[in-house]
């Protein structure tokens, strides 16, 4: 046996085997994706089949009732809307101001690192913890009771870290050339932020806020602690009235033994999904428009 042949013998012909393991990996990836999509499709289909028949104008405009067929979402829809308004009114200005301060005023260093790490951690805290905070601070300590205001503030605090992080990212995406151009003309930092940085970052900030809000209105856990999980057959007259929101209403109906209530819970889930998808669509449109408008 020549030396060259002996050398070749030391290499196993493995291309076929290597290709096979590549195909196997691809198959696993397909399977994993398919599993996720399948689960989603089954859930959606199940919800649609159960819930679609219950959807009607009357369903959207009635109060809950002891009878499933007379029950409606009005209180929950209006409550969700008010909570969303409170969240935007509170979390949007505080979040943007914090982000501007962190991004434009604090120079990189230990202080900024500590703050950013903590905000990042807060964004990951389970929402029920925020519910407990809301219960302790707003409901008890500030004696707001189980009111719309207490619920709105709790959700606002829940989304605040997310709003800050999103706004910081939007601010960071503003090219530094824009700031330099403004400073070079003798603008102060505030003028630079107000006239150039914020307008350029606004679409990104809005997108982030809408996404945060869409997460917020789907949250049931913190509100379970805050709202009185009761029969709310009226609309809140003031910020200090009791309230309910869509996820809570769904939670209540699902917990009932009668199948008829499970069906209208499915209808309510469809309404909630439509709201969330609409909000996300608006966010995507805003983001795309911002991308097209910016040509740096």
């Amino acid at each position, binding site marked *: 046996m020549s030396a060259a042949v002996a050398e070749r013998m030391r290499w196993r012909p493995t291309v076929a085997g290597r290709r096979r393991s590549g195909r196997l990996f691809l198959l696993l990836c397909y399977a994993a994706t398919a599993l996720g999509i399948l689960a989603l499709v089954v859930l959606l289909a199940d919800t649609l089949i159960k819930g679609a028949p219950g959807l009607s104008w009357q369903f959207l405009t009635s109060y809950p009732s002891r009878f499933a067929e007379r029950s409606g979402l009005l209180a929950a829809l209006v409550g969700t809307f008010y909570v969303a308004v409170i969240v935007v009114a509170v979390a949007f200005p505080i979040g943007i101001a914090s982000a501007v301060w962190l991004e434009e005023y604090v120079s990189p260093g230990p202080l900024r690192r500590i703050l950013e790490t903590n905000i990042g951690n807060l964004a990951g805290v389970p929402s029920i913890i925020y519910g407990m905070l809301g219960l302790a601070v707003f409901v008890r300590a500030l004696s707001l009771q189980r009111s719309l205001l207490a619920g709105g503030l709790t959700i606002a605090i829940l989304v605040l870290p997310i709003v800050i992080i999103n706004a910081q990212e939007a601010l960071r995406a503003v090219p530094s050339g824009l700031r*330099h*151009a403004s400073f070079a*003309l*003798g603008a102060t930092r505030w*003028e630079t932020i107000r006239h150039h940085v914020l307008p350029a970052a606004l679409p990104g900030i809005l997108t982030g806020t809408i996404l945060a809000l869409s997460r917020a209105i789907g949250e049931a856990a913190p509100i379970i602690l805050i709202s009185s999980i009761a029969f709310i057959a009226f609309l809140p007259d003031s910020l200090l009235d009791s309230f309910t929101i869509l996820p809570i209403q769904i939670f209540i109906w699902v917990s009932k033994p009668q199948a008829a209530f499970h069906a209208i819970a499915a209808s309510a889930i469809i309404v909630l999904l439509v709201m969330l998808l609409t909000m996300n669509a608006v966010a995507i449109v805003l983001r795309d428009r911002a991308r097209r408008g910016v040509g740096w």
Partner: protein
Amino acid sequence: MVSAMRAPEPVAERVSDPAKLERVFELRGLSAWYGAAQALRNITFDIPKNRVTAIIGPSGCGKSTLIRCLDRMNDLIPGFRAEGHVTYHDEDIYGPAADPVLLRRHIGMVFQKPNPFPKSVFDNVAFGPRINGYTGNMHEVVEGSLRRAVLWDEVKDKLGASGLALSGGQQQRLCIARALAVEPDVLLMDEPCSALDPIATYRIEELITDLARDYSIVIVTHNMQQASRVSDLTAFLLAGEERTGELVEFGPTRDLFTRPADERTEAYITGRFG
């Protein structure tokens, strides 16, 4: 005044002894750091009034750091620190009483990459006068500035269009018009043509020569032909291994290019390194 079509004469003719010229900036032992890294060491020279002063040197020699010391734009970079003195009309701009906002109002700056605001052509030019409290006729200022930057004829029908819709060369002239609108006394240009094609570059160079009659101009360039074409005086910087820039030679551009005093200058301008 000379006709606007005047050929860009070699302005170096106008300078014999820089020490006799009236000064805008005096740099005395200027050193600069970014964090622990020293970017400039002990720079001393004077920048004269109504002349074009070029700062040349290879990449990383501190040219940009130096020009950005003149309007304290380096302050925006965290960790930046300067030592020594830079005076602007005899006032120490790094002194305790100095206000960078006021300083920049008198010192215009044009950047490497054209950076118009994502606003209309008109608002780009009007922003500076607006924030600086100009109360006169804004249209006149905008038109005048755009004419000075030789851009008016190209944009007069689209003042409402976005500044970003212009070509690269037009954007850079828009940035020059924007800087001129606040009636500065000095124009700092940090490699203003490096992102432009040769024709746009030629137009900017023509403009610089034209503006030099009324403004003191400092231009950073890595293009030696450009320095020799547009500048009256040239400062040559060089950095060693540790990337700290030092001033090798400063003098009338023609002298520096024809009979450099330092052999490193000669090596650089003849293209032996850099």
